[in-house]
């Protein structure tokens, strides 16, 4: 009796189930990818038509041909830039603290707070910035940047912590064993070893807040007039807010400008995400040169 070749009913059924599951897995993958592809293609289809000189050089108009989103482009760059300037140092230092000194109760508390903050709806963070900054100093690009920075910090903190923990202890020992102080070991040996991962975390945090809308409504106002040249005072706007304001307009031409802005925003986020991938692939924690 051959026990290897007998094609039992059991075997045939197992084969069938196997095939069925494979098909199901492919179907689910397709279901996950289709919306993303669809969105990207649709945004390109609707938005590309809006891209002309006026789109990049004019102010938005809720009537007529919709104008352009120059103020939104500048505002997005300024506000996200400011938020990065504020959020990155805080996030990275907190991440370093958690990874290197955070195995205690204080570390646990900070970690818990960072995780909670990651889950807080961004409109709540906007309300906070409104209460703290806007109520006292009025609408400003800075107020919006504060809100975005608060959203960035926990993301950067946790990715920095994770990536610094990946640096092998043998590297720390090597440095400490050479009579290098703990602090210099962290800043000159550990952090550089983890740098590509940290930069990746920062870029992903930037991509994450670049499209934020809700907290900005409460903090930068979202003007269709020229934005204030003083980042600490006076209303500003961003691409995301312009999409919000123009997208619901009755005139199809105005809506087209909103789609153009959406395309620009999607490309920006996509570009940052790609950059993050490239940076991370360029250098790995353990084996990189």
């Amino acid at each position: 009796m051959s026990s290897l070749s007998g094609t039992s009913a059991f075997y045939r059924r197992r084969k069938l189930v196997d095939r069925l599951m494979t098909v199901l897995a492919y179907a689910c993958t397709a279901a996950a990818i289709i919306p993303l592809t669809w969105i990207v293609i649709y945004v390109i289809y609707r938005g590309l038509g809006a891209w002309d000189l006026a789109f990049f050089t004019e102010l938005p108009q809720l009537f007529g041909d919709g104008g352009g989103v120059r103020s939104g482009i500048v505002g997005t760059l300024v506000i996200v830039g400011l938020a990065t300037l504020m959020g990155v140092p805080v996030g990275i230092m907190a991440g370093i603290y958690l990874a290197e000194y955070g195995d205690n109760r204080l570390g646990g508390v900070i970690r818990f707070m960072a995780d909670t903050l990651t889950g807080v709806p961004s409109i709540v963070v906007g309300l906070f910035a409104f209460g703290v900054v806007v109520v006292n100093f009025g609408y400003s690009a800075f107020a919006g940047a504060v809100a975005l920075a608060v959203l960035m910090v926990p993301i950067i903190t946790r990715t920095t912590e994770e990536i610094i923990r990946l640096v092998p202890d043998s590297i720390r020992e090597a440095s400490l064993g050479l009579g290098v102080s703990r602090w210099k070991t962290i800043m000159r040996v550990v952090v550089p070893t983890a740098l590509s991962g940290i930069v990746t975390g920062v870029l992903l945090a930037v991509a994450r807040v670049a499209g934020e809308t809700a907290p900005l409504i409460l903090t930068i106002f979202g003007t269709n007039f020229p934005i204030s040249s003083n980042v600490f005072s006076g209303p500003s706007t961003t691409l995301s807010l312009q999409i919000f304001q123009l997208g619901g307009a009755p005139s199809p031409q105005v809506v087209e400008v909103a789609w153009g802005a959406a395309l620009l925003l999607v490309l920006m986020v996509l570009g940052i995400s790609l950059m993050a991938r490239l940076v991370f692939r360029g250098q790995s924690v353990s084996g990189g040169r």
Partner: protein
Amino acid sequence: MDSDNITREKELARGRSDEQEPRRLRTAQGSTANRASETRTEPAVTVENLDMYYGSFKALQDVNMLIGRNRVTALIGPSGCGKSTFIRSINRMHEIVPKARVEGKVLLDGEDVYASDVDPVRVRRKVGMVFQKPNPFPTMSIYDNVVAGIKLGGNHKKSELDEVVERTLRQAALWDEVKDKLKQGGTSLSGGQQQRLCIARTLAIEPEVILMDEPASALDPVSTQKIEDAMEDLKKKYTVVIVTHNMQQAARISDYTGFFFIENMGDPGRLWEFDETSKMFSNPNRKETEDYVTGRFG
């Protein structure tokens, strides 16, 4: 303590009063001035009644050892007997482990490295360490790896670095293999080359004592041979303490040998026997030592 040990102790202790050095761990200069003068014979390191704990677990008990200056001291014994723990207590590297603590004394040139005003960073500048697994800095070139300790340790002259790199790489028997690619990453080298790079890196900070924790256990025989060759040179200038599982290696390269042993499971490790290497390998005083060096267990 038996009579042999006492004789050796006398020999090592001779001249301890030759020159009373200033408290060098606490001062900035003089790290190289007095090193390696062939005439000094007092022990480089004196360990007295050393107990060592990881939390409530006692890993070592009552270790006493005189580590001869410009000698190679080999530490042997079964795994888990506290050899790594012991050598880390000499340069305070155990302090990286939370809850690790030491009782007893470790004197470096007569000075207690555990005195309350001694900075562990300074201790580690005088007592360098080479680890079991080669651990070059992955973001640094070969060149930068060698001078990392100098650069990160504070004041240095740029003009001196080239000279340091060549000298230490020669001492570590690596110069000829890397002299044309000093700007390449340190991790691009083979395992054996990486370990010699780590030795060069340790030499660059000009320590007095070099601790090596099984430096060749992860390497192939050829690389091991090269490291042993390098050590032959090193012991002219440095005090070397090396943990090894390789009995032939211990017999070949060391002047003194210490055997660590745990008699009953759960006991702390002890320095079971310590003597001149020739005696330890030919006619040790204790049966366990003989069993171990002849390969009957362990």
